[in-house]
């Protein structure tokens, strides 16, 4: 077990899987970098450096740089997946789904169903989500809810280095298209990660902390804020259970419902937009399946219904944080049937 960053953990997972299975290939813009230039060959390793070193070991046949052409990348990856490869396609920012949505949403996601089970599409789309980098409205979105809405896709939102590695390996070995959402701000967060390969199953939530007063469900970066909030609240004698679903499609509803059955109170935290988003999705499932146990209104903690602003002061106000979660927990404790 060594302490590595989430970036490094993801890099390990790709190294290991590409060694293990030669059908695994990596496709994307500057996943290596340097093509057509006169400088170094592995100049970028992805804009966030996650795929650094792969081209050195596996060569350009398996680490494939592309022109800036997301629709062709995703189409190519879906086609390759359907015909025997296991591509990892990089969509640099999830916001760029705008230019390749058809290939993911109308093609890859639906092949198996439309073709009556005759097609297998083992495709992983690695992409980045999240605000916090002052990258404004078109490079900061958390669009995982859009993909969750679509049947045929699986959606992963890791919150730490250990989970990231195990979930990426699982994603690569899975036979369905998986949207793997990496939060930009988490790349540098470190954790203990085994050097060996391991898998974390989809649809199994992680109970990060247990407490009997309130259940907090949080995703990706929001898990860290939830843990921080729970610590603050513990000092005041309020004990929270913090649940990280890890995958949101499939969603481990049982773990969430079981917890709410005990605590009777739910706060859902998500960095995606508030309308038709994940916070609403989870809240609505609980309102249907754990209604009898609920003692107070469910509270959602999300950004407001606005695009992501640029100015640091505005972006900081936009992103939900531990203070917002503490406030929501206290509000749900104050309310009651």
């Amino acid at each position, binding site marked *: 077990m060594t302490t590595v960053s989430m970036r490094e953990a993801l890099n390990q997972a790709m190294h290991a899987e590409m060694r293990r299975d030669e059908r695994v290939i990596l496709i994307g813009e500057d996943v290596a970098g340097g093509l057509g230039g006169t400088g170094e060959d592995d100049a970028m390793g992805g804009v966030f450096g996650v795929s650094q070193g792969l081209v050195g070991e596996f060569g350009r046949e398996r680490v494939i740089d592309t022109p800036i052409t997301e629709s062709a990348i995703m189409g190519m990856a879906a086609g390759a997946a359907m015909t025997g490869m296991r591509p990892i396609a990089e969509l640099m920012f999830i*916001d*760029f*789904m*705008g*230019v390749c*949505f*058809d290939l993911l*949403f*109308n093609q890859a*996601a*639906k092949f198996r*169903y*439309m073709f009556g089970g005759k097609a297998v599409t083992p495709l992983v789309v690695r992409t980045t989500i999240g605000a916090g980098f002052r990258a*404004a*409205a*078109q490079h900061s979105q958390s669009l995982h*809810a*859009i993909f*969750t*809405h*679509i*049947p*045929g896709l699986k959606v992963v939102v890791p919150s730490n280095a250990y989970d990231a590695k195990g979930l990426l390996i699982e994603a690569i070995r899975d036979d369905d298209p998986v949207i793997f959402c990496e939060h930009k701000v988490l790349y540098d967060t470190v954790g203990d990660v085994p050097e060996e390969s391991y898998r974390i199953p989809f649809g199994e939530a992680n109970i990060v902390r247990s407490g009997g007063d309130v259940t907090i469900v949080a995703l990706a970066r929001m898990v860290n804020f939830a843990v921080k909030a729970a610590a603050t609240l513990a000092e005041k004698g309020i004990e929270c259970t913090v649940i990280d679903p890890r995958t949101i*499609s499939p*969603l481990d509803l049982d773990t969430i419902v079981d917890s709410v059955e005990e605590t009777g109170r739910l706060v859902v935290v998500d960095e*995606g*937009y508030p*309308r*038709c*988003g*994940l*916070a*609403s*999705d989870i*809240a*609505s*499932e*609980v*309102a*249907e*399946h754990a*209604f*009898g146990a*609920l003692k*107070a*209104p*469910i*509270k*959602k903690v999300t950004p*407001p*219904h*606005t*695009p992501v*602003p*640029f100015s640091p002061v505005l972006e900081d106000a936009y992103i939900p944080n531990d203070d917002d979660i503490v406030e929501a927990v206290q509000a749900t404790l104050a*309310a009651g*049937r």
Partner: protein
Amino acid sequence: MPLKTFRQAINDTLVQEMQRDVRVILIGEDIAGGTGCEGDGDAWGGPLGVTKGLISEFGPDRVLDTPISEAAFMGAAVGAAMNGLRPVVDLMFNDFVSVCFDQVCNQAAKCHYMYGGQNSVPMTIRANTGAGISTAAQHSQSLHPVFSFFPGLKVVVPTSPYEAKGLLTTAIRDDDPVIFLETKLLYDMEEDVPDESYEIPFGEANILREGGDVTIVAVGRMVHVATEASAALARKGIECEIIDPRTTSPLDTETILESVEETGRLVIVDETTPRCNFATDVSAMVAQEGFAFLKAPIRMVTAPHTPIPFAPNLEQLYMPDPAKVSAAVQQVVGYQG
């Protein structure tokens, strides 16, 4: 008042708004049809005949046929809207947003905000929506939740010819990008529609039926499904209140909450796939804001988490129907806490 079909009501509205304001133009594939052919210059009037006759009255400078090139003409509409025109774009099937998603969700929706309010983007995107005519997985989706997710867009789902005319008039006169979704199965529905122009404001729900036992919120054609169910339920002594939000963004949360305050029970009917959809959105809103009113779990009646099948019998099974709505209503009425 003259009886008009849904199709005629939309056609009338376009004619009247184009007469009223020279800045209103139409853009889309085959909205006239026949351009570049030897035959009739108004060959189609849109694949569903909705825009028939407009090119004869307004000419090719205001009724613009396009190549099959959604990304280009949607982007062009954004540019035209920012530069003084008020384009009405026919996207044909709402599923096609996937090939111009960037233009809709990253450009149209965000320009006003990103640019600090300097330019508005007064454009209307008309698209047909919904299953029921065996157009299978890529031409039958109901994507209002995806659009409602994005701040900056307004989303309209009219339920009848009268409603369609008033809401489309409002949409065209509105200064923001509006997604106007026409349910395929409603095009031939007839109703009294005034010849005069009129606006129905956004964000005001329509209460179609009053009843004290259960609130049913439904959108688009599901309103009629709910109405049919409520007639049968009334014979069993269960009185439903039916709310048609008309616009899913903005959403008239007040009317929904007021109704749930009366009835204490909520069923939401939505033709979309179940995850992160409009039903979860409304449910979560009520679970947060109207929890104290609730006497029973909120039930959601939606399509299953699958793509839309082709075979007519499977497609029927896929869509919510009055029997499913009745069952859900009876469950919440019979709930023993």
